């Protein structure tokens, strides 16, 4: 070792003479350094602590994409404290209550970091801001997540009994009902003032698909992204609590006991052709939905093709995990106090809950209507799975069904509307994006 170091030193010793002093020309980055006496230095340092920043919060303005925006004292001080506590609450829900931890932990941590004073981690030079620009602002991350979701989804139950797709359609009423609700609040109350774009982005929460919500919000109402994402994932996690009372309230004991006839086997070829069929229909009917539907079907096609297991495997693991981390942190960075602690957020949370409830109810009611016209009876409990929230909503259908009639396994039957709900929400998203294009 010694000899090595010696050689090194000798080498550089000889360089000494030959090499021009490159440093003369080097102008170091940063601002020029100004000397201060020790006292001033300590005081300046104390002024750069977070504690000081919290205590001296005041109304100010800052630049945001070229606009000067007002930032209130509250959102610089107590607002941040509240947001950090909300981040902790999300952690509690994710870890102890097991609410969608895969997304709520990164979102919560992003929110925590975004509310740290001075560091500006969600600003253009902070790493949250850089991640946001790299993949959320341009819609790339939700698309990549959808590829992974596609590679993880088995559309077999839908292929086996296509008509249950109608349940996944009816559940989209949650989206549009909420949209109407949001604009009604704007028109008839003074509390809220949502634009049609904002109302649409809020409505999509009812679609119960995180990536779809984020994709639409980024396009139509980026200023509401944080609240919409949090509402979306929180309510998805709350599906086992929100849905059962509605399902029971709308069905009779008899209906809940309906036993559905067993699903036919689906051939490999049907599964391979399915994504191509769906993408073809989408491009004919609604090209504006093809980014979302296309990404979903691409992932599913790689999976079902059976010849690229290593790519399908990567979509389902390495890639979706990496993007989930990046997406969660980036979305969380929009939980800054000045954007989240506004009256709209309350509205969004209430409306999101309504969206889920309407979607659930519509799915159940649709199943009851279908039973009026068909001899193969559908258990209305699988209608609620049409909101998607895959696979939680399907599990809820199964559980409530088992309560009514032990041994009546509805899980696979419920997976049909469940995955159809994903397609349905993407179509609804496409319609809204198309309207505002």
């Amino acid at each position: 070792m010694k000899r090595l170091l010696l050689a090194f030193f000798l080498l550089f010793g000889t360089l000494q003479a030959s090499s021009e002093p490159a440093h003369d020309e080097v102008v170091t980055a940063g601002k020029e350094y100004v000397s201060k006496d020790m006292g001033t230095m300590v005081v300046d340092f104390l002024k750069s602590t977070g504690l000081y920043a919290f205590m001296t919060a005041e109304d100010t303005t800052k630049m945001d994409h070229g606009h000067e925006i007002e930032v209130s004292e509250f959102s610089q001080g107590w607002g941040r404290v509240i947001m950090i506590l909300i981040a902790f609450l999300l952690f509690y829900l994710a870890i102890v209550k097991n609410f969608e931890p895969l997304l709520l932990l990164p979102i919560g941590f992003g929110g925590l970091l975004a509310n740290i004073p001075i560091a500006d981690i969600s600003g253009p030079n902070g790493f949250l801001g850089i991640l946001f620009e790299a993949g959320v602002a341009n819609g790339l991350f939700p698309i990549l997540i959808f590829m992974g979701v596609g590679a993880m989804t088995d559309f077999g139950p839908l292929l086996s009994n296509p008509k249950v797709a109608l349940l996944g359609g009816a559940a989209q009423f949650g989206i549009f009902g909420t949209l109407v609700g949001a604009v009604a609040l704007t028109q008839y109350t003074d509390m809220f003032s949502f634009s049609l774009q904002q109302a649409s982005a809020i409505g999509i929460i009812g679609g119960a698909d995180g990536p779809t919500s984020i994709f639409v919000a980024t396009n139509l109402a980026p200023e509401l992204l944080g609240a919409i994402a949090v509402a979306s994932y929180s309510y998805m996690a709350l599906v086992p609590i929100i849905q059962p009372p509605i399902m029971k309230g709308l069905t009779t004991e008899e209906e809940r006991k309906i036993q559905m006839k067993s699903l036919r086997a689906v051939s490999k070829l049907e599964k391979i052709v399915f994504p191509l069929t769906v993408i073809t229909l989408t491009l004919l009917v609604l090209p504006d939905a093809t980014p979302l539907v296309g990404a979903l079907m691409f992932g599913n096609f790689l999976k079902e093709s059976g010849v690229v297991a290593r790519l399908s495997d990567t979509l389902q693991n390495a890639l979706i995990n990496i993007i989930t981390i990046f997406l969660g942190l980036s979305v969380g960075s929009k939980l800054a106090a000045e954007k989240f602690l506004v009256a709209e957020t309350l509205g969004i949370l209430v409306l999101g809950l309504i969206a889920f409830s309407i979607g659930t109810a519509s799915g159940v009611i649709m199943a009851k209507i279908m039973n009026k016209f068909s001899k193969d009876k559908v258990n209305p409990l699988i209608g609620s799975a049409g909101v998607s929230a895959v696979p939680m909503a399907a599990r809820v259908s199964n559980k409530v069904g088992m309560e009514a009639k032990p041994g009546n396994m509805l899980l696979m039957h419920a997976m049909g509307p469940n995955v159809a709900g994903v397609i349905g929400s993407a179509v609804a998203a496409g319609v809204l994006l198309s309207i505002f294009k």
Partner: protein
Amino acid sequence: MEEINLVSEGFKFMILGMGTVFLFLILMIFVLNLQAKIIQKFFPQTNIPHKKDDSSSKKDLDEEKRVVAAITGAIMAVKKG
């Protein structure tokens, strides 16, 4: 946006949106049923000869599973014998 009646706009969106969602899904149901019939008729029990790709990690795991299965079998044999 002053003169727009937001609620009536919202209802228009609902009609257009739900109309499209149902149109799309009904079309899909129709095509999927048709597709199922065609496939069952012309390609019954299709077993497309898709050779697995050489995803090494996958293969390793699979091989290990086979080994484990073989061992289990062996033990069973030993036990019985």
